[in-house]
């Protein structure tokens, strides 16, 4: 953290050449401001990390120590007992698998369906295109949460409660995904599409072999956004999944605290296990994830 250097020094650099234009006082205030800014940033960043550090530290304390001294954070005998007993109970591996399968399925279907629709809206001319475009765009105003009852009844009558499809299908129509793709496709040069068409490629082939291979940034943005969204969705899987072996990670974690008298290290260990997968992915692909998420919000 001490390696933080301020980019603003380059801003004040020209001032040394023209001392008359920028008095020293300005440079001092610039330096002072940067120091204060750095202090505030680091203070907040550390404050933001405290709850995570706390959970990790408590999770490796022996239960007997926590009972004797509940407010201490540290132990001289760190142990993975809490993690062991969570894995022994067995279900957490199902929850990981279920979360991964439902998130991956939703992501794949959404990417394909949304990009096809966006391609048509962006490149193909057909009747009512503008109308369909507006109708879909209006969908960003419909929150899935107020439609839970009819969605539940639909899946119930289709016999899809307690199945992966029950978790996946209602999360597919993600209108924001369509518009991220459409914005990207709108930027593709017309000549490229026309050349492919002139070569006799059908629309489906133009979409799949010409447009999709050059649309990696849009695909990765939508993939990240949808995957994180479905992985972390709590309310919907809570309603459609009751079988402990079919639960997704968030719903399973919630069921841990429902059991009475679970020791604190185990509660913190389950929080850590719940946090780890996406934290690791995030640490590895930070840049891409951040720009993907930012793009989904802005476009």
């Amino acid at each position: 953290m001490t390696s933080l250097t301020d980019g603003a020094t380059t801003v004040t650099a020209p001032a040394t050449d023209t001392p008359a234009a920028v008095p020293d006082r300005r440079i001092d205030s610039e330096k002072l401001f940067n120091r204060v800014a750095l202090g505030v940033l680091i203070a907040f960043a550390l404050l933001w990390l405290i709850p995570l550090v706390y959970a990790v530290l408590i999770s490796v304390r022996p239960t007997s120590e926590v009972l004797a001294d509940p407010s201490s954070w540290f132990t001289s005998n760190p142990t993975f007992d809490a993690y062991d007993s969570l894995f022994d109970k067995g279900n957490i591996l199902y929850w990981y698998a279920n979360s991964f399968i439902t998130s991956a399925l939703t992501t794949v279907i959404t990417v394909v369906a949304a990009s096809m629709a966006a391609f048509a809206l962006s490149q193909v001319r057909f009747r009512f295109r503008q109308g369909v475009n507006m109708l879909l765009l209006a969908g960003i105003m419909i929150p899935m949460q107020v439609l839970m009852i009819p969605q539940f009844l639909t899946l119930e009558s289709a016999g899809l409660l307690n199945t992966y499809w029950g978790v996946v299908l209602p999360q597919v129509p993600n209108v924001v995904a369509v518009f991220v793709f459409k914005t990207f496709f709108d930027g593709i040069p017309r000549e490229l599409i026309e050349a492919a068409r002139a070569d006799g490629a059908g629309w489906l082939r133009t979409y799949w072999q010409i447009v999709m291979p050059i649309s990696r940034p849009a695909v990765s943005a939508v993939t990240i956004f949808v995957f994180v969204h479905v992985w972390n969705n709590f309310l919907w899987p809570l309603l459609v999944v009751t079988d402990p072996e079919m639960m997704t990670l968030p719903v399973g974690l919630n069921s841990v605290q429902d059991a009475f008298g679970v020791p604190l290290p185990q509660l913190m260990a389950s929080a850590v296990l719940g946090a780890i997968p996406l934290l690791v992915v995030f640490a590895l692909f930070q840049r891409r994830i951040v720009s993907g998420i930012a793009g989904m919000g802005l476009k």
Partner: protein
Amino acid sequence: MASTLGTASPQRASRTSRWAGPGLIAPFAIFYVIFLVGPLIYTFIAGFFNGSLLKTGMGDWVGFTNYGDVLADSEFWRTLGHTLWFTVLTTIPLVLMALVLAILADRFVRGRWFIRFAFFAPYVIPSAAISLIFLWGILADQTGPAFEVVQWFGITPPSWLGDPNWAMYSIAGVTVWWTLGFNFVLYIAALQEIPRDVHEASAIDGAGPWQRIRHIVVPMLARTTVLVVVLQIVASLKVFDQIYMITGGGPDGSTRPTLQLIVDTGFTDGRTGYASVVSLFLFLVILAFSLVWFAVARRNQKES
């Protein structure tokens, strides 16, 4: 149009074109109709029936009875009040803190990874893990760090989650910690699009850092701010997860949001008609704000 330009067989191209558009849209449209449009229409209609989750069919026509019941139900107004109060309590700090911290972070090049990680990491953690950490750890009575810290100052801390006067503030605080990174990242992305020479020009003009931020940077972020505020309000109005898992809507229902009222009446009590009307009212409240989002998205699309 485009399809007939320079195509070897114009007829074939125009024919495929006629069906290609609708055909390519169909898969998405089917999901859209089954899981968004259909349910929206159902919600509207179900409000006029006394349906139940326990028996099939819509139930009997009851006219505006459900509407009357909901509007006369003090618990509906109370949960709506909680939802709006939570929205105020979270939107203000989540927008202002994200703006300030992003502007400060934008001044530094190295160490950016660490700052971004610290703020954004909580956002990718499932709400269930967040709830475990705060309910049993950070905000626990007597033993939690938040209790200890306040005690250092010689003040007897309240029960953060057990005191009805404090529970909503605690939940709002957890939410600020959890989701600040999202708004922070939106602002960082917008700041990166401001050209460097804008800063340099004004620095040479003799403007101090504070004036530059106030008169140049913040106004240039106006469009982003509109979007961040709207997205935040819409997200906050849909609050459920952390309240459900941390306080369960308590103590004494003092944090119960409207979405929980829908889940409780619709799924626990099985009163689909009543829950549909509450859903429709919550939808209208959210719609009022997401219309702004819609307008922004439409404008962005026209410009691109």
